[in-house]
C-alpha cells in the first residue's frame, strides 16, 4: 500500500501574477519514488483533467545538473541534508503528511512560472570573472605545474558547487556569497587561477552586489542546505581576496 499525501503547491502563472498556494491530494505514493516522480504522477493527472501541470525545473535527476530546486516544508531542497530535490525520496515522508512546496524566493531570482525561477544572475556573476583566461590550444603540458594535493582537493571541494541557488533561497539576506565564494576559492587555490585572482574577486563580488543579492552576515543557512556541502569558510576567503584586491 502506498502513502496518501496532501500537497500545498505554489502556483503562479507568470512574473506578474500574484500567486497562491493550491492544495492537491496525491494517493498511493510508493516510498521508493523520488519527490519529482511523485510530482510527475500529479502532473499526469492534471494534464488529463485539462489543467496546467505544475511547472518545475529538473533535468539530470541525479543530483548534479543543479536545475531542480524547490523549498519543501520551508527548507530549500527539503530536510534531508546534502541532497538535491531530485534525490529526495518519498521514504522520508510519513503517510498522511502535508507537504508545502514553494519556489526559491529572492528578488534576484524572479519567478518565471510556478516553481520555476530565473537564475541567470548566477551566469552573469561567472561572466564577471569566474574563469581562467586560456584560449584553446595555448596550454602548456599538464605536468609543467605540479599542484599540492591538499590544494587540489580543497579546490575540488569548492568546485563541486552545482549552481542550484539553494544558498540564496535559504539566506535571510538573499545573499549569493556561498555561490560566488565557491568559484573564487576553487580558482584562487590553484596556480592556474593565480594571475587573475585579484580581478576575479573584485569583479565577481561587484557583479553579485549589482544583481541585488544581499550581504553575508554569517548566518550559515547557505551551507546547511547546500547539496554539495560547500563550506562556509569559502566566504571568509572571498572577503580576504576582495579586500586584498581593493587595496
Amino acid at each position, binding site marked *: 500500500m502506498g502513502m496518501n499525501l496532501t500537497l500545498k503547491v505554489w502556483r503562479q502563472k507568470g512574473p506578474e501574477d500574484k500567486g497562491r498556494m493550491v492544495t492537491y491530494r496525491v494517493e498511493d505514493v510508493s516510498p521508493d*519514488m523520488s519527490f519529482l516522480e511523485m510530482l510527475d504522477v500529479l502532473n499526469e493527472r492534471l494534464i488529463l483533467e485539462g489543467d496546467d501541470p505544475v511547472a518545475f525545473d529538473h533535468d539530470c535527476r541525479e543530483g548534479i545538473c543543479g536545475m531542480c530546486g524547490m523549498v519543501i516544508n520551508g527548507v530549500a531542497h527539503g530536510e534531508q541534508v546534502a541532497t538535491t530535490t531530485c534525490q529526495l525520496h518519498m521514504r522520508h515522508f510519513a503517510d498522511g503528511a502535508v507537504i508545502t512546496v514553494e519556489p526559491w524566493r529572492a528578488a534576484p531570482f524572479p519567478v518565471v512560472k510556478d516553481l520555476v525561477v530565473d537564475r541567470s544572475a548566477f551566469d552573469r556573476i561567472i561572466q564577471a570573472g569566474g574563469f581562467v583566461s586560456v584560449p584553446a590550444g595555448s596550454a602548456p603540458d599538464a605536468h609543467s605545474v605540479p599542484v599540492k594535493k591538499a590544494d587540489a582537493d580543497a579546490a575540488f571541494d569548492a568546485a563541486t558547487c552545482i549552481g542550484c541557488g539553494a544558498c540564496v533561497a535559504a539566506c535571510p539576506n538573499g545573499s549569493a556569497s556561498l555561490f560566488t565564494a565557491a568559484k573564487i576559492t576553487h580558482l584562487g587555490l590553484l596556480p592556474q587561477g593565480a594571475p587573475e585572482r585579484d580581478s576575479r574577486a573584485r569583479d565577481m563580488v561587484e557583479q553579485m552586489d549589482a544583481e541585488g543579492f544581499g550581504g553575508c552576515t554569517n548566518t550559515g543557512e547557505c551551507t546547511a542546505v547546500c547539496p554539495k556541502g560547500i563550506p562556509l569558510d569559502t566566504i571568509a576567503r572571498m572577503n580576504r581576496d576582495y579586500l586584498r584586491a581593493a587595496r
Partner: protein
Amino acid sequence: MTYYTEGEPLRDTKAPAGPIEDRWEKRKFGARLVNPANKRKLRVIVVGTGLAGGSAAATLGELGYNVTSFCYQDSPRRAHSIAAQGGINAAKNYRGDGDSVYRLFYDTVKGGDFRARESNVYRLAQVSVNIIDQAVAQGVPFAREYGGLLDTRSFGGAQVSRTFYARGQTGQQLLLGAYQALERQIAAGTVTMHTRHEMLDLIVSGGRARGVIVRDMVTGEIERHLADAVVLATGGYGNVFFLSTNAKGCNTTAIWRAHRRGAMFANPCYTQIHPTCIPVSGDYQSKLTLMSESLRNDGRVWVPLEAGDDRPASRIPEEERDYYLERVYPAFGNLVPRDIASRAAKNVCDEGRGVGPGGLGVYLDFADAIRRLGRDAVEKKYGNLFEMYERITGEDPYTQPMRIYPAVHYTMGGLWVDYDLQSTIPGLFVIGEANFSDHGANRLGASALMQGLADGYFVLPTTIGDYLADGPYGEVDEDDIAEAEVAVREKIDRLLSNDGDRTADSFHRELGRLMWDHCGMERTEESLRKALERIPELREEFWRRVKVSGDADELNQALERAGRVADFFDLAELMCVDALHRTESCGGHFRAESQDADGEALRDDERFAYVAAWEHGERSPVLHREELRYEYVTMSQRSYK
C-alpha cells in the same frame, strides 16, 4: 517485407591520404584560414552547450567569429555532460605503463568492434593529450597524487591506466571549464547566449544550412536565427527508450529535424547499454541512474551459483557465488568492455540467477576492496557514488553489495559527418554524441568526454574555417525560412488542439518499453519486425489520442515533451530498420542470430564492414554505404578472455 531502398555509396572525401600520424596535420594545413577582420562578419550558430557545444562556442568566439548559442536548460552549465562520472582518457603515458597515441587508437578501434574510421580515431587519440593540458590550464581540479602530479585510473577495455578523473564528477568539472570559457566569451560579446530555447527545425536554403527555428520556452515565441554555418551539439537519443541514464530533457528533435532536411543518419541501431546502473524500482520510474564504470576497478560482480537462490547476499557463502566476469574473461575480469559486461548480466538474469526485485540485477561487491584497502580508502575513491546509491535505494553499499543492472546510456549512432565533422548538408556540422564518428559500434568508458572536447576545442574550430572561407553566404531566401516556421507552428497547433485522453509521457513509456524489449540488448529478426509493425500503430494512436494542456504562448512543459515524443517515434522506426538490415552482431548491436559457440557477438566483416548512412525518404529510408578500410589495425574477433 523490406523497409528500405538502396542508394549510392558514400565516401568521406576530407581525410587526407598518407601515413595515419600525418593526416590531421595535413588537413589542418590544407584547411583554409579566415582573415581575422572577416571572422566578425561570419555568423555561426551552435545548438547545445555540453562538452562539445560549450567548448566549440567558446573557441569559435575566441577565434573572433560571431557566435549565437542555444540551450534548452536555464543555463549552459546544466547540459547532461555534467553527469559523466568516471573520467576522460588521454594518451599521456604519465604512468610509463606502455601507453601511447597508437595504443589509445588501437584500443578504441578494437573496442568499437571495427566499425569506426581509422583516420578519425587516430586524430582523437592525438588530440586527447591537448585536452588534458587545456583543462588543467582552465583550473579543472583533476585528482592529484602527493607529488602534485595528476592521478589516473583504469577503465574497461584497456590494460593501461590512462583515465584522468576528478573524483566521481569528471564530467561536471570539465563542463564547468567549458562553461566558464563560454561565459567569458559571452562577456566579451563574441557569443550571444539564448537559454531556455529549443531548436525545432533547421533552415536549409540554396542547398546550405543557414539557420534554425527555435521556440522561446518561456514566452512560446517562435524565432528564426540565421547564420553562415550551423553546428549541432545536441547529444544522443538514448531517451527513445524512455528509461535511460540521459537527463529528462535529452531528445532527438534537433538531429531528427536536420535528418528530415537532408542530413544522413548513420548507424542509428548502435546503442550502448551501460552495465552498472541502479535497477528499476517501479513503474513510476522516470529515469535510471548510472553508477560509474570506475567502480569495476574495485568492485566484484557476482550472482548466486544456483538459480532461484533468494538468500540475502551475506548468507551466500563464497563457494556458492559465481564471479562470472572473472570466470569467463580472466584477462580483463571485471573490466571487460561495456557491451560484454551488459550482455553477461542479462544472460545470468535470464538463467534465473538475478538478484533483487524481479530478478533483474547482479551484485557489485566491495567487501574485498574494503578488506584490502580499508573503508577510508574506498570512501575517498567512491564516496559520492556510494552516497548516491544509498539515497536512491535506501541500502548501504559499505555493508551489503550494490545491486546493478544494465541501462541505455549512450548512442554511438548519430548524424553522418565527414572527417571535417560536416554532415551531408553543406554548412551543417555535427559534434559530440550527436554525430556518429569515432566510437564505431561500441564506445569505451571515458571516451565520450574525450570526443566531445576534441571536437569542440580542437577539430571543429579548424575545419569549419575551411567552409567559412567561402562565406559570408548572403541573404537567406524568405520562402525557405517561412516554410520551416509554418511547419513548426502547425505541429504545435496540432498537438494543442487534439482533445485526447492520454499523456505524451504515457506514449513515451510505451514506446520505450517496446524498444527495450525488441531493439534493446538483444535483437532478433522476429523482434525487430514486430517492433516495425507496432511503432506505426502506436504513432497513429499518439496523434489521435495525445492530450496536451495549456497554451502555445507560455512556459508549457507538457507541450515540450509531446513534441519530442513525436520525433522519437520516427527515430525508433529508423533504428529498427537499421538493426534489422544489419544481420551481424557488433559492439552494442547484438543480433541473437549471429553469435559464436560461447555466445559472443559474431561480426560479418565480408558483408557489414561499412557505415550505414540513412537518407530520409518519403516512403522509406534510403541506405548509403560507406565502406570501412583497416590499414593499421587488423580486423579480428575481439577477445577479452
